[in-house]
Every structure is written in structure tokens, then in C-alpha cells.
């Protein structure tokens, strides 16, 4: 495994990309105990692109997101982010002492936006994720799917143009997840948002992405990329999406097997 598939999509040298990782490595710990989470990753995400990162557990998907979010620094290599990133987690991580509107408005409050303006803008964002009229409710009164939509609105309230999502729908049931795929797609399409969406669910990736990036495990390397040319809107149960998912899954199995035989 000496050659690594070079990322396609953006010509080298990487310019004009919203996110560029150049030979990025990340190790945790020191010396013999060091765990290499990422090993020489090259990845470019174009402005407005929707990229899904899939891989078996332990492939450093979340590490890559943390690097892009600026929450962590690479051990080697360069991370370039041109834009304002917002990070969403598997849990909505809403603040229980604030109602829904104030949760969405908090990023603006921290920037010193006046009360009337930020509440107005928060209500608009809630309308956008189809939660208009729910602003007065508390996070615990909402379902898991609604909470994630509030978290999405809160991310948008940061004036983010890059959305980094760490298995955001991983804890939801399939029905809710399908609807949130539609929701996310409608927020993203035509907005110019750049999305990096980490998931271990291959079908989800095929449903959403412009491009799927497959990472290997321990150390994390880019094993393959798949351009998704299925026209939108898509359905997760359509034959095209299922076909692509099967292809990606086969490739993923190959990686896992290679790992086992080593």
C-alpha cells in the first residue's frame, strides 16, 4: 500500500478550494505509544461542494473534522480553510437553559448583535429548517430530529459558509434521518455552503454527496474517491443510490479485509 489515490476534483496545486489538506498527518501520543490517526492525507473541498467522508471506525474521520474546524492542529502538513467553519456533532448540544430561539441567536449575541435583530434573524433561520413557531420551546421538549434541525439553524446563525458535520444523524431513526437528508439538501442547494459530512453510513453518503471520500483505518489515508453523478433530488432507496452504495461498500470491505490479513 505505497501509492495513495490522489484526490481528484480540483487541479493541483490546490487553489480556490474552501478546504485544503496537504500531506496532513496527525498522531496522538509520543514515541512508541503514538497512534497515527491520519497519515499524509491530501484532500481538497471546493467551494459549495458537498463531500461525504466515510470509513470504518477508527479511520480518523472525526480527527480530520477537528482539524478543519481549527479545534486541533496537524502534526505534519498544512490545513487551509478559506471561510468560516461551523461544526455539528452527533448530539445537538443545545443549551438547556435557553429556549430554541435563544439557542439559535446565541452566536449572534456573542458577536454583539442587538436583541431585536438577532431574534428576528433566528426566527428566519428556524423557518428555514421548518421549525417556525417552535421558538419558545425548550430543547428537552423537542424530538431528536427537531433538536438537530435547531443545531443546524444555530450553525447557520454563525454566518458559517463551511458546514462540518460529524455523524450528525447517527443517533436518529431511519425515518427521521431520511427527512433530515431532504432538509439538509434543501438548506444546502443554491446556498453556496460547503459541506463536509462525516458518516459511517455508506447509503447516507451516496444519498447526499457530490463526492465520497473513503478513508482507510489506522492509519487514516484516502483510499478512494467516488464522484456521485446521480441527479438530485435523490431518494435513499433509489436503485442508483443503492448501486453506488454497494460499490463503495465493496471497496470499504476490501480495505477492512486488507487490514485483517496484515
Amino acid at each position, binding site marked *: 500500500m505505497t501509492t495513495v489515490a490522489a484526490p481528484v476534483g480540483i487541479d493541483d496545486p490546490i487553489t480556490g478550494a474552501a478546504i485544503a489538506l496537504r500531506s496532513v498527518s496527525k498522531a496522538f501520543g509520543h514515541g512508541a505509544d503514538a497512534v497515527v490517526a491520519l497519515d499524509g492525507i491530501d484532500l481538497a473541498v471546493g467551494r459549495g461542494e458537498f463531500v461525504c467522508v466515510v470509513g470504518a471506525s477508527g479511520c480518523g474521520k472525526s480527527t480530520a473534522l477537528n482539524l478543519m474546524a481549527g479545534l486541533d492542529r496537524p502534526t505534519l502538513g498544512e490545513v487551509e480553510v478559506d471561510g468560516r467553519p461551523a461544526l455539528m456533532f452527533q448530539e445537538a448540544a443545545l443549551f*438547556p*437553559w435557553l429556549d430554541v430561539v435563544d439557542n439559535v441567536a*446565541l452566536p449572534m449575541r456573542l458577536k454583539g448583535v442587538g436583541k431585536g435583530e438577532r431574534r428576528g434573524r433566528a426566527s428566519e433561520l428556524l423557518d428555514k429548517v421548518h421549525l417556525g413557531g417552535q421558538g419558545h420551546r425548550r430543547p428537552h421538549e423537542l424530538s431528536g*430530529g*427537531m433538536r438537530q434541525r435547531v443545531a443546524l439553524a444555530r450553525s447557520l446563525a454563525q454566518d458559517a459558509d463551511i458546514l462540518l458535520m460529524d455523524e450528525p444523524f447517527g443517533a436518529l431513526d431511519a425515518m427521521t434521518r431520511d*427527512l433530515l437528508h431532504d432538509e439538509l439538501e434543501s438548506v444546502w442547494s443554491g446556498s453556496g455552503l460547503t459541506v463536509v459530512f462525516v458518516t459511517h453510513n455508506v447509503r447516507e453518503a451516496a444519498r447526499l454527496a457530490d463526492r465520497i471520500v473513503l478513508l482507510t483505518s489506522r492509519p487514516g489515508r484516502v483510499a478512494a474517491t467516488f464522484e456521485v453523478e446521480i441527479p438530485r433530488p435523490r431518494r435513499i432507496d433509489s436503485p442508483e443510490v443503492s448501486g453506488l452504495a454497494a460499490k463503495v461498500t465493496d471497496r470499504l470491505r476490501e480495505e477492512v479485509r486488507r487490514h485483517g490479513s496484515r
Partner: protein
Amino acid sequence: MAVDEHLLNLAGLDALESVLGKAPSRWSRVWAMTWPKLGALGLFLAGWQLIVWAGWKPEYVLPGPAKVLPRLWELLFVGEFWRAVGITMRRALAGYAVAVVIGSLLGISIARTRIVRSAIGAMITGLQTMPSIAWFPLAIALFQISERAIMFVVVLGAAPSIANGLVSGVDHVPPLLLRAGRMVGARGVGLYRHVILPAALPGFVGGLKQGWAFAWRSLMAGELIVIVGNKPSIGSRLDFARQFSDSELLIAWMLVILTIGIIIDAAFTKADLTLRRRWGLIDNATR
């Protein structure tokens, strides 16, 4: 998929999944909180009367509720009674207020700075275990028999609990909320104001409640020892009843102390419950 259909699906799912807030009516909640207290009171009075009837002590030493409760009723119509209660409550609230300010400042500085924590963190917990009555000899040496001596001990009694409550509240802020706070742009003081302190509120309320209990006990001890002239207080009235061997009056005053304690405890419990309900912590606890 049509947008309308998507909306319809979404709305239906939201309605299905939403937690239906079936709040019990106000009266049933009040009753649910009151009846155990009334029951305990009844048992307490019955046990007391039984002991008196058993003739363990002569009735002038240990009178029963039938003697004490009428005395208590009479007291309620005496101006001096309300003056004494007023002075005690003023001391309690003033001392408690100072303790809240000092305890909060202490708590924040311990939670924030590692050096302060390693320097005085353990000492604050040690102070909490110090019986407040042990402070009085020093307090009297410093401030003589005065209001300030009482205040000194009340503050020393309550502030460590309040500080500790705040520290443990801050220490137990979920890391996920901290990450989320940083992600939405909260840094430094903003992170404290908008994320850490609100998240620490349940722990802080616990500390406030415990701090009140310590303040109240310290005050009662203080009023028995430090009797300031021409200032009737609950403690001084209690001591007065003891000196005149008036057990009925003595126990009547003790019931006053108990009642005030119960009322204030109920207020704290209510605040705590309201907080937990608003945060959705009750559902998780009972599920």
C-alpha cells in the same frame, strides 16, 4: 419529492415525536408537596404527646403540644415576638447575602485558576467541616458582643458551601456543551457568562441551599451566645425562656425556628424543581 410532501412528513413526525408536556395542575402539585409534610408533622406531634403521657419527665420540664401550641398562638399577637423574628431574619438575610457574594467570588476564582484551587480549594472544604460555634470565641475577641461578631460567623459558616457548590457546578459542566460553546464563538469571559455559569446553575443552587442551612444554624448558635442589648431576637428569646425555666415558651420558640427552616427549605426546593423542569432534567431522572 415535492416540497409540500416533505413539509407534511416533517410536521407529522415532529408531532409524533414531541414530548407532550402533561403538567399536573397547580393544586395537585402543591398538595403533592404539602401532604408528606403535614403527615410528618402529625406523627411528630403524636410522638411528642405520647412521650409526655408516658411521664418520662415532669410536665413543667417537658410540656405536651396541648400546652405549647396555645402559648405559640398567644405569642403571635405580641409585638415583641414579631420584632424578635424581624431582627433575626434581617441578620440571616444580610449575613446570607454577604456570604453569597463572597462565596460566589471565591467559587469562581477557585474554578477558574488552577493556582487558587490548589492553594485554597482543600481549605474551603475544610472550613465547611468546621463547626460554626467554634468560631465564636474568636469572633467575640475580634468584634466584642456585637452584630458584627454574629455576621462574621454567619458568613464564615455559609460562604464555603456556596463556593463549593459553584466549583462543583463548574467542574461538572458537560464537555460537549463547552465544545458547542466554543464552536458558536464563546471565548474567555463570554464562555463563562453564556455557557459555563448557566450550565453550573444546578450545582450552584445546591450550594446555595446548603449555604443557607449553615447560615441559619450559625445564626441560631450566635444569637444564643452573643446577646446584643435591647435587640430581641429568636436566639435571645430562647435563652430568656431557658433562664426562667419556662419550658412551654422554650418549645414554642423552637417550633418557630423549625417552621422558618421548613418554609425556606420549601422555597429552595421549589426553585430547584423549577430549574430542573425547565432544563428537562426531571424527565430524564424519572424515566
